[in-house]
């Protein structure tokens, strides 16, 4: 990588790269790139595998606390071995395949889902020198890799030979396709302003501070804040998380397209869900929260990957908090929300970002005008759309409750 930059960085910052180089340095020259890639793959698999394991535990403990109960605390110290106990349980369970199932597709669905959900991690810049693959079109790659999850969901629903699975899979597909649009449209403004599809360059574009303490993160601009919120809402829906967890609505659809899965295949679906959640959160960090950048110049001595991890964890905890709070949407509400609310707002936000990048040269009092116009373009449509859409339905009065 960039050798000049490496020498000026602190030891901690260089540590992962140094570790990789010491391992690959022992190998002949022609093998190094392959060994390096393998190490990166192992690091991502191990890191996010562990994150997945402890995320499930954190989720159960936090949900427990929010519902005033302790959560799992029996396996190991404070329940820290619980994920491994769950893993052993999933591995030792009987793997049931329905008699009428399409055996090949039934087997392929979870495998494809996990494989595809791991692809996105390749282009996330975890730190200043930590990105597995540097692509000019990384953002496009990320979302292209994500679209294949829909196929896996369809395969799971269809191959199970169960009408509930199939119906739920169709619902899941409708949801995934509907929310893909606002997800992509909320990313476009970032690409527009940064002028690049490369994740590393988008992070680099967010470096620096104005007034000495306000980072140039996209989330601190009006269109960026709106884009971040829209992106996170769409990400919630894309990763099938509550309140958009209709596909596996336990109370209504048995378990949706997962009904006919058991044992480790079932665990694989959950692994894919958490991987997807992590990847989308990582993308949100990269696009809107300044990636691995430190919030203050004085805090830059903390290595960049620690900042990335911290931001990622905050977003993941937000996912869990939202899950503990909101009830599930109805299917028609879900569709209405996507097409009548999110899509118009993301389109307006795109125009807003275009205006923002056109007025980048304005200075002095004109800058106030720029901020006022941008803020109005976020707030006014939100309030107007919210009013018209919820007219007649809110607030609800419960007469007999």
């Amino acid at each position, binding site marked *: 990588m960039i050798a000049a930059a490496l020498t000026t960085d602190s030891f901690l910052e260089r540590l992962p790269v140094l570790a990789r180089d010491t391992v690959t340095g022992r190998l002949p020259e022609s093998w190094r790139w392959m060994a390096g890639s393998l190490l990166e793959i192992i690091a991502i698999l191990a890191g996010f595998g562990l994150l997945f394991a402890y995320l499930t535990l954190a989720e159960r403990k936090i949900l427990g606390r929010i519902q005033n109960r302790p959560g799992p605390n029996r396996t190991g110290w404070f329940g820290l071995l619980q994920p491994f106990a769950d893993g052993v349980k999933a591995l030792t369970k009987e793997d049931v395949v329905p008699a009428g199932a399409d055996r090949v*597709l039934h087997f392929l669905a979870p495998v494809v889902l996990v494989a595809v959900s791991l692809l996105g991690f390749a282009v996330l810049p975890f730190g200043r020198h930590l990105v597995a693959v540097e692509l000019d079109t990384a953002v496009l790659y990320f979302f*292209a890799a994500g679209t294949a999850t829909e196929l896996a969901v369809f395969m799971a629903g269809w191959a199970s030979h169960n009408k509930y699975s199939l119906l739920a899979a169709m619902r899941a597909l409708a949801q995934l396709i509907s929310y893909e649009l606002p997800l992509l449209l909320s990313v476009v403004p970032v690409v527009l302003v940064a002028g690049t599809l490369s994740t590393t360059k988008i992070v680099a574009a967010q470096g620096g501070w104005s007034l000495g303490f306000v980072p140039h993160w996209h989330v601190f601009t009006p269109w960026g804040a709106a884009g971040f919120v829209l992106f996170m809402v769409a990400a919630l829906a894309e990763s099938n998380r509550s309140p958009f967890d209709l596909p596996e609505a336990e109370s209504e659809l048995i378990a949706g397209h997962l009904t006919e899965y058991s044992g480790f295949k079932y665990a694989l679906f959950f692994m894919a869900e958490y991987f997807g959640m992590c990847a989308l959160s990582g993308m949100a960090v990269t696009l809107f929260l300044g990636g691995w950048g430190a919030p203050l110049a004085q805090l830059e001595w903390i290595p960049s990957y620690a900042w990335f991890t911290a931001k990622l964890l905050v977003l993941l905890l937000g996912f869990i908090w939202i899950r503990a709070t909101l009830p599930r949407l109805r299917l028609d509400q879900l569709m209405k929300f996507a097409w009548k609310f999110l899509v118009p707002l993301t389109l307006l936000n795109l125009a807003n970002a275009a205006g923002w990048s056109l007025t980048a040269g304005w200075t002095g009092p004109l800058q106030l005008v720029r901020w006022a116009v941008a803020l109005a373009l976020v707030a006014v449509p939100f309030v107007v759309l919210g009013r018209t859409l919820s007219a007649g339905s809110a607030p609800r009065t419960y007469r007999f409750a």
Partner: protein
Amino acid sequence: MTFTFLILAVIILGSALAAALRPNLIHCALLLVVSWLGVAGFYLWAGAEFVAFAQVLVYVGALSMVVLFAVLLTRQSRAELRVDAPETRRAVWAVIAGVAVSGVIGAAVFATKWDPAPVTAPEVTVRGLGLELMGAHAAALLLLGVLLTAALLGAVVLAAPDRPEKEEKS
């Protein structure tokens, strides 16, 4: 490099052939997706990253869903998903259509004068792509936009309820 190309060719053609021959329509559709993925891999092999990922996004992400939805919504039962053994009449028409399409494409390929000089893949910038789309290919972009808008409006008209919602409530 040639080896990679051969593997890609086997994947693309093999899955396409299997898609044409499998009796199960869903399998056909999924094999078609594999074929599209192979084409995306081919673009990657040729150094056209942007086209490759756009191919995956559009074909694997969106078009496959359209195909699968169409198959599922037009068949009444699982039994109908089976395609009958090839009838001669249909096979003849299929061969005629195939030969015609490949003739058109082949003619276009052979009519083009190829410049065999090695070309390095140009660096893709968003700005460059935008200028290209809005400049040289503006007409095609507009036409596609009109087409898709018409399709969207048609879908809305088909999906909209016959009566306004307020009347239904009363």
